[in-house]
């Protein structure tokens, strides 16, 4: 089996994978980073969103071998385990932007990408349109939208959590 090496949440990792192994399988099964979820098989639900070199990507539609040498961030790597939460994580909690929690890691990773592309001052319409690639069945999105707006603002103000994550 071919070898692959990449950096995941700041740590150099390598593994031998079948060619068809998806990034999400490598993360979940080889690295046991089970915060990244799989909710569909057609790239619709977004539960599997991670960052590859800073950009949100659906890890269910990415081969592990495509990530040779890449820098991957998953939900587990967003904040120092011993430090404060990332402002976007905190915003989801504060605004009750999650219920069952299954779509949440993907939502948070996608939200950060919205901030990267659209900035810190996000209106409701922008957030709703930009969330097209993520499905939540529990919340009706009402509180996710509020959380993302608040999280984006908090990131704009900066903070220790943000610096830790970046």
């Amino acid at each position, binding site marked *: 089996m071919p070898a692959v090496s990449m950096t995941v949440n700041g740590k150099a990792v390598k593994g031998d994978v*079948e060619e*068809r192994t998806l990034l999400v399988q490598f993360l*979940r099964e080889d690295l*046991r*980073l*089970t*915060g*990244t*979820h*799989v*909710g*569909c*098989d*057609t790239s*619709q*639900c977004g*539960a599997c969103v991670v960052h590859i070199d800073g950009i949100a990507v659906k890890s269910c539609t990415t081969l592990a071998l495509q990530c040779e040498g890449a820098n991957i961030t*998953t*939900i*587990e790597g*967003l*904040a120092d*385990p011993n430090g404060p*939460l990332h402002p976007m*994580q905190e915003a*989801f*909690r*504060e605004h*009750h932007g*999650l*219920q*069952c*929690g*299954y*779509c*949440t*890691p993907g939502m*948070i990773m996608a939200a950060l990408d919205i901030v990267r592309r659209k900035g810190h001052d996000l209106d*409701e319409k922008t*957030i*709703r*349109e930009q*969330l*097209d690639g*993520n*499905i*939540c*069945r*529990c*919340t*009706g*999105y*009402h*509180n*996710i*939208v509020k959380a993302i707006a608040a999280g984006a603002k908090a990131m704009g103000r900066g903070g220790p959590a943000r610096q830790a994550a970046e």
Partner: protein
Amino acid sequence: MSATGIGAAVRRKEDIRFITGKGQYTDDVVRPSATRAVFVRSPHAHAKIKSIDTSAAAKMPGVIAVLTGADLAGDKIGNLICGWMIHSKDGSPMKMAPHPALASGKVNYVGDAVAVVIAETQAQGRDAADKVAVEYEVLPAVSDPAKTKSGPQIHDVAPKNTIYEWSLGDQKAVDAAFAQAKHVTKLDLINNRLVPNAIEPRAALAEYDAGNDSLTLWNTSQNPHVARLVISAFVGIAPEHKLRVIAPDVGGGFGSKIFIYPEEVVCLWAARKVRRPVKWTADRGESFLTDAHGRDHVTHAELALDGDGKILALRAKTIANLGAYMSTFSSSVPTYLYATLMSGQYNIPQIYCEVDAVYTNTAPVDAYRGAGRPEATFVVERLVEVAAREMGLDPADIRKRNFIKSFPHQTPVIMAYDAGDYNASLKKAMELADVKGFNKRKRESARRGKLRGLGYSTYIEACGIAPSQAVGSLGAGVGLWESAEVRVNPTGTVEVLTGCHAHGQGHETTFAQLVSERLGIPFENVSVVHGDTDKVQFGMGTYGSRSGAVGMSAIVKALDKIEAKAKKVAAYMLEAAEGDIEFKDGKFTVAGTDKSAAWGEVALNAYIAHKFSGQELEPGLKETSFYDPTNFTFPAGCHICEVEVDAETGKADIVNWTAVDDFGTVINPMIVEGQVHGGIAQGIGQALLEGAVYDKNGQLVTGSLMDYAMPHAHDLPSFKIGLTETKSPSNPLGIKGCGEAGAIAAPAAVINAITDAIGTEQVVMPATANTVWMAMQQAQPAQRVAAE
């Protein structure tokens, strides 16, 4: 109100693990040397299995076993069952067909499992599954519930594919009332078939312990104890005391994870056969094909009114599609969870409802968020709205004219409503929605080429499921009480074990709020344990908005016992009579003195027992209770939907949503609002977007998230939420339940709004742009004539 007590919007305990990726869902559980199960499923809706050749698959790399229905039957593994007996009008019992976990002889829907491959990896399992050669003789199929009587017979036990022909109410009295009516409103309604689509797919991981001859199942269940009971007592995999079921974090359920499914049975059976753990996780395609779907009713309904718009009677005839097999609670959904709510919020003297449940070559249909009550609400609220329009009455006025105003109120369809104030929720909703300003907004929309409409839904539901004697008399095979155990540790911290199961509802937070307030201890010192049959003795799980009303009532009862015993301990400590001990804010005081003991001291003394050693009082501080409710609860409210329909394309956008609900006592308003949001989204999804479509050959056309339109963020508005409160007199906390309200209320509100906007009633769900545009075109000639 304390910052963490009843009524406080406490942030959730469970969130930390979910927002940091530390949740533990079934597929996250790792067991040593686990194998993967991959199912071979029927591509045909209806076919005889002529032969299954597993030899090529068995030789594939990594394959440990390939098992078929014949192997399952050979091991005498029993069938899955439906646990609610319904009798037809003629007194005959429902026709429950055998449902083996792997099909034997015949397949009855696309996705019916015929074999399973157990392999080292999922990829190897998939490769091998492709090599299982199944020879089918394809039979004609029927997927339309209205065409089953003349369709091919699916099960020998059910002639004309009829499961039961059931009725509720006094037909003669209803017919007499209709004969007296000044106005009759008639509607043909389809309650569209839905796929629940919890974002976590179903999963099962089974492990066999040869040393103890016992099995453990991790699964995505809303009720692990019921799963254990059914798998033990009916399927016969293992005796109850040799089977542990753990439902860890579960990623949404909405009903679909109540039921006992073939895959968990097969994983358990296979794990014992191959002596290694067996894991299966559905891909989304399997979820679409095999999760129990929801709704799927075809109904004709009529409402009789007098000249003043006062309702005299209601009658309805429904065909309910239960799919290819009877799922766990499927029979109860279109009967006792449906026809019993046909009175809505109204004083309707006579109601008669007939329901024919039928088999089709489609996935099984069972409870989905609301379960029967959304279907009933859709019938009642569409009838009332259309009656108002036909009679030239204001839709709010006709509702007020017919509201039940005194309680208790016995409806003609079993339910005895205990408390409510329907005028109050309607009034508050109309204010929040600014109904007065609607006409101005409508004119403004018209200037932009948009048709604006307003729709009401004043819904009611029966929750707090359920009084055991009542449901037992109606055919339920189980009691629907709930259990709780409160364990006080020597240090005063508390563990609450509940038979409910949280899969998004936030019980770890709300249940802790109750205990914190009641015992006067910090919220952080309470943890809630659920979802493991080895920890919690028994429980009925979470569905039917029951966890607050029934589950928390059980905790209240256990806390009563804890307080009583703690007072005894405190009496020994404080050398006072037990009757003189008062307990308040976490402190035990001898009445009229300054002698007191703190909660933690009493907890410690309960365990060290130095003060009462050798006395009648036992050491320890742990109490259990089983709470059986005395009645259902009746959450109710008013949702108002405002839409704008594009006159050119028919696309309907929801521009305002107002929900005012009466849930009785609210423990955590933040969580309650979240439940309402989610329910509304699912109801809007049903009304505007979602619909499971089978073609005439029984192929699921909407079998992926690319074909089945789930609500996305941009499909929905933000919601205006309000509450009114009349406490339920039927449980100690006055809770009614909030989990299903939105899904129950929303579809009627949306369709009432769209039909108001476009001026024709013939709009079926989902009201896509195409559907609405077609309705507008068909209505146009008549409107032109009317205009001329």
